[in-house]
């Protein structure tokens, strides 16, 4: 049997979301699994992000 073209990413924070986006761009089907009701993780709670202090969302 050949290798699957799908990947599971566990966790939908900034790392998980970026992994999922890149994998999709690379031609893979992605299951993004998140515990909470929305993706974004802790970064979505941040007002600004350093060092440039632009909006986190």
């Amino acid at each position, binding site marked *: *049997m*050949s*290798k*699957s*073209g*799908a*990947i*599971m*990413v*566990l*966790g*939908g*924070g*900034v*790392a*998980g*979301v*970026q*992994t999922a986006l*890149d*994998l*999709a*761009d*690379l*031609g*893979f*089907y992605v*299951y993004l*699994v998140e515990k*909470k*009701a*929305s*993706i*974004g*993780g*802790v*970064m*979505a*709670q*941040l*007002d*600004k*992000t*350093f*060092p*440039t*202090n632009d909006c986190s*969302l």
Partner: protein
Amino acid sequence: MEDLEGKPGQFTATVHQEPRYIDEDKCTSCGTCTMYCPKPVADFYNERLDVTRAPHIDYTQAIPASYYIDAKECLRVNFETCNLCAQTCTAKAIDFSQKPAKHKLDVGAVVMAPGFGRIDQEVLEKFGYGKYPNVVTSLEFERLTCASGPTEGHVVRFSDEKAPGKIAFLQCVGSRDESCGNGFCSSVCCMYAVKEASVAKEHEPDLDIALFFMDVRTQGKGFDDARKRAEEKYGLRVIRARVPRIAQVDGRLGLSWTTDDGESHSELFDMVVLSVGLCAPEDARDIAGLAGFELNHYGFCKTSSADPLATTRDGILVAGAFQGPKDVPESVTQASGAAAAASEMLADGRNTRTVTETFPDEDTELEAEEPRIGVFVCHCGVNIAGVVDVKAVRDYAATLPGVVLYENTLYSCSQDALTTLAEKIAKNRLNRVVIAACSPRTHEPLFQATLRSVGLNPALIEMANIRDQCSWVHSQEPEAATEKAKDLVRMAAAKAALLQPLEQPTVDVTPKALVIGGGAAGMTAALSIADQGYETVLVERSKELGGNLKRVRFLLDGADPGKVLKGLVKRVKKNPRIEVRLKASVESISGYVGNFTTTIAVGKKTELVNHGVVVIATGGQEYRLDSYLYGESKRVLTQLELEERLARGKTGLRNVRNVVMIQCVGSRGEDLNYCSRLCCTQAVKNALRIKELRPETDVYVLYRDMRTYGFAEDAYREARKQGVIFLRYDPERRPEVLKVGRGIKVRVFDRLLGEDIDIPANIVALSVGVAPGENDELSKIVKASLTSDGFFLEAHAKLRPVETAVDGVYLCGLAHGPKALDESVAQAKAAAGKAAVPLAKGKVPVAPLVSHVDKDKCIGCGICEKLCPFNAINMVKEGKRKKAETLTASCKCCGICASHCPVLAISMGGFTDEIIMAQIHAFGGDGCGQ
């Protein structure tokens, strides 16, 4: 995840999904359910500082853009009563019949990105949290400074809801603290505290803010600079001390601390912010147990410095804070790296499971009809509607020529609003759309996709930015802001009427990569691209592969760098898809993403290579100096030279009684304006090695801030235990290396004694840091800019950390900035992953706004060719004259050519002279012209 079976390439994961009790497809995010629900619940998104109801959405922009019901709190779910939400939901989206679901997912690989956990409440209580109301966590403070937070951005203390006068930030809460089991450094808190303090000062300029650091660890790229600027601009007080003690005194908070000159201090504050650290996720053990990989002693994922993205189980990768505390840029980098690693493993499966999005054919007939414009004026919640009278703007739009539909939307970018937009376009046969909302830079692609979905060319939309340009900048003048919004909408409608469909060309990609630099980063990138299935040419300037890694003798995690290096070199040489060119350099690069042609000089010959992408991995170099008696005394070495000597074992330390290490030689403002990031860990590593080889040798480390971030903090603590003496110095009083007869000594100001002390030294090891390589020439060749420090500049520090501003050119390793081996490897994989995207797609889209030369009008003067900053215009001979021609794939749509053409022969798609004149007339015709 409940289970993971199978083997790499063919896993089956069992995933349990809880019901949302609200149908995502039906929910319109109107919020009625929240309004009617009688059950208050803590708003976790706002750190429980606010209250919401059982049915809610975490935050307005949340994805999925649908509400859900908190099942633990819902009266209907738990007691079969209430049901008010279901009765009031007009969309009939509430569905209590939903059951938990189980999914069996066939996947080839798994990427673990569960993030980080929270520091125990008990640990926070040691600092008065829970006991004193005005002691808050940094995440709570984050919500307080946020305009969409519970106080709308007003910083208040909880005891009386009044603005605090003085705030103290306490660092290392739950980090660098063995008593709570977290001996590691959380790496991000120093910088985020500076950020939070800066944001607070922007909101309330009169605040007095003090930050208590043990060491100031702002070692990221550009962080020291940002911190210094913040300290100066906002007058932040930086106090170096161990974490102070805290007590409540007359309703205020009394802090007492001791500085390293032995002095005791105390001061009253109104509010204390605890900079809480990042610990392992609470469910790390469960996940690791189910998936069968190992954790480290702190409960984070166990990885090695040679392969930081691999767990101990094949086929399972890791990214983000679960691999170790890290910030956003590094998390994003690791994420792209993990994607590349999965892409290597599953290269055969690429494109076997994906589906291609299809769009209906363009309705060219409708597009050619007289303009039928729809204007949609967005509330953006209260973001726009709180200032601008959006209903008046909408009604005004009705009076404009060509407008057949005019409406308001609450959030035009939300999924349900986009669906409605598509329906309205189709129903009203609109052929031009104006969205009066926010910035096209961030949101235009969304609306363009909506147009495509109903068979309209994406160029037929125009946005009026009535948020940034009206409600935000004129928040104090609602009437004037409303008038300006009308002006912008009138201009946008005038433009929309003249918009024409634009072609969306794509160009084919040469499926080959060029990697410049054969060190650890370059080799890793080349291997990853090759393993993902694409040919790679690896160019190395010197006569052999290896770069700086050749000089590293030990790694903190015990791995043998020599073996790591040999392994990489062997794999590169063996890989049939990699061609290595040694003693080679890049002479010139022409072309654009997908179609580069590069001239490589190999020895005396030159060679042409066609390729689709470029990865810059040219490395850095040990900083060279002629001070501190370096070069004059054989006893003065760099850390790498010391490392070389320690590699000889005990003989390297014969008769060595005293070793003095000096940190930040060159770095942090002495000559180089930045922190070299790796020297503190390197010094600790070498100090421990000395203690291992010859325990009786005294080792002194003279430092400014020990920046042993992450798990390297363990080694720092171990070095202290082993008797290594750490002395902090001020940059104003740097240590001196002096000659004494045939020997040398180091003079340093001892803060505790308050006087200079002399330390005799058999060896002085200078932590000289990392200087940029000779990047100037390559920077000009590839047109990728450098930072003021001489490293290559990334396109965006957080969102695009391994891309340059030039499409198709990526960067990694020391060429980007100083970093440790594991970080270089992760970044190299990330660059390889990003570089493989155009290779995997086979085609790259070209922006449709590109310049277009009307050859009949062109007089061949060549001004445009000279001015174009992207080399996107060629002069091509046609008959007797030369004519300008745009290389569409290189064009960045800046419009410089069009604005300078003396005969107006160049036009920009969507920005023709006719359109711009129409907008100016629309502006002047009503209001300003009268």
